[in-house]
């Protein structure tokens, strides 16, 4: 079975994630876009693990999942905190941390 379809699917998912990250303002949607990019990478890991017949890629994808889970915990709490103080989840409003 050819890996091409999986690679293309992963590329499409990643591109959707990137575009979503660049064009949307809502922090939660941005978050979902990031998850999409991470999972496209996971798909590639698993695909190539299957392709080469070893477990390295699968192990890596588990790491990514764990990191993503931790990231979600921290990130969501930050978003909630920002939302509580500013009554908005738009990332363009949260631009105080600058030059």
């Amino acid at each position, binding site marked *: 079975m050819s890996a091409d379809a999986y690679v293309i699917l992963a590329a499409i998912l990643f591109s959707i994630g990137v575009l979503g*990250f*660049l064009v949307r*303002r809502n922090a939660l949607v*941005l978050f979902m876009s990031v998850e999409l990019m991470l999972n496209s990478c996971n798909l590639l890991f698993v695909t190539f693990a299957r392709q080469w017949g070893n477990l390295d890629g699968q192990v890596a994808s588990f790491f990514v999942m764990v990191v993503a889970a931790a990231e979600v915990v921290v990130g969501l709490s930050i978003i909630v905190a920002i939302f509580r103080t500013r009554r908005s989840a738009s*990332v*363009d409003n*949260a*631009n105080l941390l*600058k*030059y």
Partner: protein
Amino acid sequence: MTLLETLTPVPATGLFEYAWLMIAIPLAVAGLLLLAGKVTDAWGHFVATVAPIASFVIALVLFLDLLARDPGQRAVSSQLYDWVTAGSWTFRIGLLVDPLSIVFALLITGVGSLIHVYSIGYMAHDPGRRRFFAYLNLFIAAMLTLVLADNYLVLFVGWEGVGLASYLLISFWQHKPTAATAGKKAFVVNRVGDLGMVLAIFTMLAMFGSSSFVDVNAGAPGLSSFWATAIGVLLLVGACGKSAQVPLQSWLLDAMEGPTPVSALIHAATMVTAGVYLVVRSHAIYAQSTTAMTAVAIVGTVTLLFGAWIGCAKDDIKKVLAGSTMSQIGYMMLAAGIGPEGYAFAIFHLLTHGFFKANMFLGAGSVMHGMHDDVDMRHYGALRKYLPWTFVTFAMGYLAIIGFPMFAGFYSKDHIIEAAWEHSTVLGLCALIGAGVTAFYMTRLMLMTFFGQKRWQEGVHPHESPAVMIAPLVLLAIPSVVAGVAMNAWIAGWLAPAVGGEDPGLHWYPHLTPVGIATMAVVAVGIGVSWWLFGRGPIPAAVPYTSNPFIIAGRHDLYGDAFNETVLMRPGQALTSAVTTIDEKVVDGAVRGSAEVALGFGSGLRRLQNGYVRSYGLTMVLGLLVIGLFLVIGRLV
């Protein structure tokens, strides 16, 4: 001329081991008065007056001891301790009591004691009296260190010490800006002279490996003429600074801002003569260099005319006396520049001058005391009836300085004029003219102060000073009269072993020569001219207008300050401002400029951090695209 071998000092025994007490006592009292503070306000000045008297007693005992000794045993060296030991160098602190230093010690402590007594009266109502007496004691200690040192380094310590005391006392009334400035001026001008002094000591250390008088005297004959001249001229620069000789004379007239006892002690009788002492003490060096000797004689001659000129044009009684001091020290320098024949006469004149000039300065102080501290002679007149004691004692000093026969100055100055005449006609003629001018301006001072009509300011009621001020005047008037008769036969023979001269075999009575008679004639002319101008008619109360360039120049101190300002101060200021500009514009400019560039670059880059998380994302994507593009192109190529 034959040079006698100078004395080799013998180690100190007995009383001479305590010679250091002469310095230590006034120093300790100065420290006590300065450190103990107000506790000593009530009695401090009495302790301070006893200190120089104690030193005088020690000096007198040592002097009598020396007098009783065989002439070959009259130099006593007292080694106190090792000051600095570094590598092969050892500098000792030691004292040398010899015929030269002991007469100085007697003059300093003797005149110093009288001036302390006088100051008890003069400074009675001054709030800073304790400080004043402390400084006077400090001066006595420093001056004794200067003359009793047995090497140039310790001499230099005393040299700087008297400079410090002079500075502190000139600007004693610091609340007066003129006094503060005058003190600073004296300090700065003296630094120029000290530079010469320091360089001379360095040269001696390089040449002889030691700065002690014994080693320098022993090594001097082996010097090349260049180095002998160099040391001689550098020492002369030092002497010029301390003794207010041309071209470093400008500070002395301003130094009259200090209290009058200070002018009498430091700026007439003792400190300003330190330059003469230095030249005479360094006779072994000068014996090796005719050039340096001639330089000393010329400086002395120029100054004696310079000071006399200024003395003629001033109306401030203290400044007339200051000009006169410059002039008389010029005579001493001239004598010292003549060589071994002149050394003893230089010291002789120094001693008699110490008496009569201190006497006259204190007399001027007494006049000021009675005239509400007015120093302008145009406001005096007819004071002889109101200040009889001051008048009589001042007159003794006056007769001594103009060289009236049998008075002190008559002997000492005549010797110098004669020696100068034998040495060179030009110098002799200048010295002769100087004697006439001295008679002129001193007669003018006498006429304007004690004779003529009253020109007093409103509300001034002259009164005689208290006994505590009159007693020192009387005690100084006596040697002004008799010092010449008393010392003439003795002084040259006494000093000869120490200064390397010969005893010319003089007697107590004057030896009349054609030059001596000419001097008397010139003095008589000076007195006559002065009487003609100032003794006959009333003296204008305001400074009369004159178009005479000589008088205008004299009133402006012969433009000494203008010269210093134009030639030294302005170029110096221009140089410092140029250096400052270079430092600010070039050095600071480069440093600040590079910082500005880095700062500008940084603030440009800072704009990228705009706080919009999506623009960061775009940047990352673009970076990723660039990397990807490179990889793809690399694969294709």
